[in-house]
């Protein structure tokens, strides 16, 4: 398990998202109204760049730009087809004003 620095909390305000690379994985980090969440940037349906899709902070979901599956950022589970398998989620925490990510 390794810690990765994402950015400072000021750089990721509510409603914002950011893409980082950690241990060879592309990971999207999202701020849903103060709740920090992270998922792998790879749709379970067709390997689309999931975290780069439309982010809805109100429902804490992101929509895959390739075929439109909507994913719950808290659980990584798809809420609509064509994806049916969940994507990986990662733990995010804040230390001294810095957002950090745990990657297994």
């Amino acid at each position: 398990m390794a810690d990765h620095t994402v950015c400072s909390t000021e750089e990721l305000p509510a409603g914002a998202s950011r893409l980082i690379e950690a241990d060879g994985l592309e990971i999207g980090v999202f701020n849903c109204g103060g709740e920090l969440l992270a998922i792998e940037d790879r749709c379970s349906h067709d390997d689309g760049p999931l975290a780069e899709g439309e982010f809805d902070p109100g429902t804490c979901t992101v929509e895959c730009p390739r075929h439109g599956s909507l994913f719950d950022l808290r659980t990584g589970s798809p809420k609509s087809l064509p994806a049916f398998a969940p994507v990986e989620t990662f733990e995010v925490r804040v230390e001294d004003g810095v957002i950090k990510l745990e990657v297994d």
Partner: protein
Amino acid sequence: MNPPETATLDPKLAEREAIKDINQDYKAKFGFNDPETGYVYKAPKGLSRQLVEDISEYKDEPQWMRDFRIKAYEHFESRPTPQWGGNLNQIDWDDIHYFVRASEGNSANWDEVPEDIKNTFDRLGIPEAERKFLSGVGAQYESEVVYHQVNEKLEAQGVIFTDMDTALREHEDLLREYWATVIPPNDNKLAALNSAVWSGGSFVYVPAGVKVEMPLQAYFRINTENMGQFERTLIIAEEGSDVTYIEGCTAPVYSSDSLHSAVVEIVAKPGARVRYTTVQNWSQNVFNLVTKRAVAHENATMEWVDCNLGSKLTMKYPSIYLLGEGAHGEVLSIAFAGDGQHQDAGAKIIHAAPKTTSSIFAKSISKDGGRSTYRGLLEVAAGATGARSKVVCDALLLDEDSRSDTYPTIRIDESDADIGHEATVSKVGDDQLFYLQSRGLSEEDASKMIVNGFIEPVTKELPMEYAVELNRLIELQMEGSIG
């Protein structure tokens, strides 16, 4: 409409009655068109953001639906036209009327339907079918549903069967919960188009435990030249319920093309059973590009019976996602490609849970240079242990000018899956014809008999009236008189 009692006919007489017009050609039976006098609204040709907003405004939709349409329109515009399957580059997107309203609202009273439209559906036998063997009927003419009726007993049991525009007004929360969860607007370019300009279609909700004994039917009719019909259908079958839905489609014969691009979403909850039957008989100037997808939860059964006879080009691959343990999916598909036709049809089944089972039986007939294609996907995802499936594709070529292609894709991520795949391509042989002719049949009748035998596994799954209709349509195709 209050259906009168029907006298019980001798079955043989009934069948003779049903097939009496067997040699009537498509143009006379389905290919006529009505004058467009009295139309309420006909959008100018072409698609624009303004038109999408106008449709939503015209229908007085809630903001979320308007936003949904606009987002889908932007997606349609940004997405390239698919370059696989049939040749979609022939479609001139700017030469289509995307919305045509033929009458003011829809009615539950047949007598209130405008005369021309009523005559059309009378000629197509819709009210007669309702009286005889249906639980409910919806009839869509151009962009909107003009008539809708459902059996009162079913309504009392909580069954909802209405057109989609009415459902959005009267059951908005229920509709929104499931809307586009099976087929998102950016699933593909045609689903995006449908999502942008959708109009009409059916909304079906069957409460838990309710079994709808007789089928619900929708009938779709295009009348205008260069028309696009974009209905959306959503069926929700709650736990342990059972419903059969049948759709039929026809259009007039024109020299220029029309477009039909529907979206059909089905949710079969645990233990539910849904059968969706299509007898597609568009005239040969219609591009038929439809996205159909169902999800089957635990121990649910989903069945697609898909018969494609008409159209210039059909691209349609009904799919089933088996998401719950023990779910079962079946696709029975028939395609008939005659002169100038390309039927690119097939099925997709995704086993995404343990102990799921499925079967795909696809049969195609090609004649007079027609082209039929089977394109299918069978997937067993990781975790779907103990999955069983059988895929059978049979193609029959009636002459040397015709063509048949098969593109089966199978992806298996579990080692204990039990999958069978069989494919045959056959030609009606001279020896078969000779044998039947030696029994006194003409060559034409012998060919028909061979074709009828070939499609029998599908026709026997249809209600009698539809089996007779399908056989009749196949016979028309055999005579080359459709379209």
